[in-house]
């Protein structure tokens, strides 16, 4: 009996990591953008564009599988970054309303938009994936009880995401660029007065955010689903935005949050597969979205945002006062 429980526990964690990783990538990206003061609600759209571009690349390209997958992921990142460039231009250079601009991005690229159009024009929907990420037996430690299947039997994307979390922490808190980034999101005027180029920091981190969202999307087509379906990210982008709030804009907490939400996403399938149907699958799949709504409501009350540690200049355009 306890053996079954242990197995169930491990399989919940493994699926939490699988479904949580795209959230982690996209969330990290949004975290960087928001730390620079740019709220990008276009994550869902950027993920879908990343997903469709990565899948198309992996279908068209020939060569060794690892190279195809690497280029496909980079193509996803590029697509996401290009999408975020639209948002960056509108909200940083033209100082448009960031909420409107971000939502436009999601509508433009989303379920009935650009990504679906590309999917159908390139007839990606009918194709079975040729390449996909598989789990790597790192250091040959896969069979170590409990930690083996969790820590040492993951895909390259998962290992990359862990590396990214560590790099993000070092970047934010131990480098001068990271310090400047935090300052730009808190008080662009103070940063500007001290010679930090606010516009450049905002562009770079918005683009980085788009690229990471694109990678998160690519994971859906290259590992989770291994084919293309219209709107296959199914709201993951929205969850990622909420996660940034839950994580108080900190990469380490974002990792925890992403796996928690990933667990809810995966739990439904797992329990169903094991014949546990007392609570319907739909409940588990709906849970992250209910929590997303709660997070967004909480975060949209101004005083609450301050308490949670949101960057003070989040969502506000910056213009230097000149005579």
């Amino acid at each position, binding site marked *: 009996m306890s053996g079954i429980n242990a197995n169930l526990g491990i399989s919940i964690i493994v699926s939490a990591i699988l479904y949580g990783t795209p959230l982690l990538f996209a969330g990290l990206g949004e975290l960087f953008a928001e730390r620079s003061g740019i709220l990008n609600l276009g994550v869902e759209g950027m993920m879908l564009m990343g997903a469709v571009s990565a899948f198309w690349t992996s279908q068209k390209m020939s060569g060794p599988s690892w190279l195809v997958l690497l280029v496909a992921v980079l193509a996803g990142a590029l697509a996401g970054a290009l999408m975020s460039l639209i948002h960056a231009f509108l909200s940083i250079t033209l100082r448009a309303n960031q909420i409107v601009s971000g939502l436009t991005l999601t509508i433009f690229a989303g379920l009935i938009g650009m990504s679906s159009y590309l999917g159908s024009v390139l007839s990606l929907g009918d194709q079975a994936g040729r390449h996909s990420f598989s789990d790597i037996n790192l250091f040959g430690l896969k069979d170590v009880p409990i930690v083996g299947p969790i820590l040492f039997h993951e895909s390259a994307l998962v290992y990359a995401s862990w590396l990214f979390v560590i790099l993000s922490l070092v970047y934010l808190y131990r480098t001068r660029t990271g310090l400047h980034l935090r*300052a730009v999101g808190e*008080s662009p005027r*103070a940063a500007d007065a001290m*010679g930090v180029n606010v516009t450049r920091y905002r562009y770079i981190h918005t683009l980085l955010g788009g690229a990471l969202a694109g990678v998160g999307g690519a994971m859906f087509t290259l590992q989770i689903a291994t084919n293309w379906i219209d709107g296959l990210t199914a709201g993951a982008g929205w969850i990622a935005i909420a996660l940034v709030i839950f994580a108080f804009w900190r990469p380490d907490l974002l990792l925890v949050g992403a796996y928690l939400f990933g667990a809810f996403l995966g739990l439904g399938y797992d329990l169903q597969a094991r014949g546990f149907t007392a609570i319907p699958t739909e409940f588990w799949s709906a849970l992250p979205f209910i929590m997303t709504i709660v997070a967004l409501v909480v975060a949209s009350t101004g*005083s609450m945002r301050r308490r949670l540690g949101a960057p003070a200049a989040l969502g506000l355009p910056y213009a230097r006062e*000149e*005579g």
Partner: protein
Amino acid sequence: MTDATPEAPSLALAARSVTKRFRGVVANDRVDFEVAAGEVHALLGENGAGKTTLCNVLTGLYRPEEGYVEVGGRPVRMHSPHDAHEAGIFMVHQQFRLVQSLSVAENVVLGWSRHGGTWFAPRRVEREVAALAEQYRMDIAPQAKIWQLSVGEQQRVEILKALYRGARILIMDEPTAVLTPQEVDQLVGTLREMARSGSAVVFISHKLPEVLAVSDRITVLRAGRTMGTVGTASTTARELAHMMVGRDVVFAGGPGSHEVGGTVVLELEAVSAESDLGTPALVDVALAVRSGEILGIAGVAGNGQRELAEVIAGERARTAGRVVIDGKTQEGKPWEAIAAGLGYVPEDRMGVGVAPGLSIADNLRLKSYRRNGLILHNKKAMADAEELIRRFDIVARGPRTLARELSGGNLQKLIVGRELSSAAKVLVVSSPTRGLDVGATESVRRLLSESARSGVGGVLISEALGGVFELSDRIAVLYRGRVTGLVDRKDADVDHIGLMMAGQAAA
């Protein structure tokens, strides 16, 4: 003390015949200004005299249309504050440019570090900042976050930022406006120390006594022109005032000239409230204001003044206690406070006081919308607005003038006038003369004192201790959200109030 030696004044910074116009208005008209190394040089003038414009030219934010700036005797062309920093010129603005969520040390190295490079090592920077602060006798904890600091401490961080980058010329814009008397003394000590070590300090102010106390030389600006430079030792307040205003100034009469009635019109019982960050902002505040008296609230900014005004106005929820306006217990809604007879002149004139994009007439009826019914009566609104403009001597084209087009002083007269003409029983005013020039300050103070004479109970919340002393019948001191002292003005003493503001003395 170093006096500028007339034989060899090593020139640190100079403006030569600088002219700067904004949409046809001449802000600086052939201004000449010289600062020597090793001196504290005061730049004196009323608001709108062109002090800020001149400093923006000196720090590279504006480019002059005519004339030029000299640094160390050589003409320089500066295109941004960054260029000014390179030349060793730093300015401490009235609104600090600090990142609230970062530490003192992080703010100091923002944008530039002695060590350059990629990495940021908090401990090392904290040690450096501590050493620098000690050298200039500043009391500050390098690892503290900015939001935890008092305004005086935040100002020290701004100075440290400049010192860390090797500033040789420091421009301070109205630095004493937000300090306690003791903090002013400390600041003066620091500035003197800088001058002694060979830096030049420019001290912008419109307050005569402190200018006389701090500076070696004084340059007076009026209406965009240099009126002259005088040695501090060889001038008087009277002469300076005359240079500043162009006529002799008579300051309005003090308090005590009106009757204090018996009825309590505003009462706070054990009121507590939280700040935006959820920290306690008001703790057990008990105050009572009778009709015809003005209760001054003294305190360093950020000790609960804003929250106090907002709680009375019903804009901020109480966590405990009771507010009674003219006998009516308040649930805590703005319209309820207005109905009970509250007039409120908020600190944030443009944001809370008026809707900047609406006309004077519209701003007036915004306040009374609950009484007006559904239909707007334009003719009446225009007539009311014209009446108010005349009565309170507001300089505006007419009732259709947009609120944002008014100067600070006229805007304030509009708000005070509106609040008084709505038959208020209690008038709460927050920093009513901040940013106003001598003339406008005079008329706003006169309005407040007249309103008290007519039986309104006033609460004057201000960091300007001078104004509080001049107008109040009683003075309460707020420190960390508590009332730490409540004294009659005639028994009050500036030093004692200053110590109470710093939390170092009881009433």
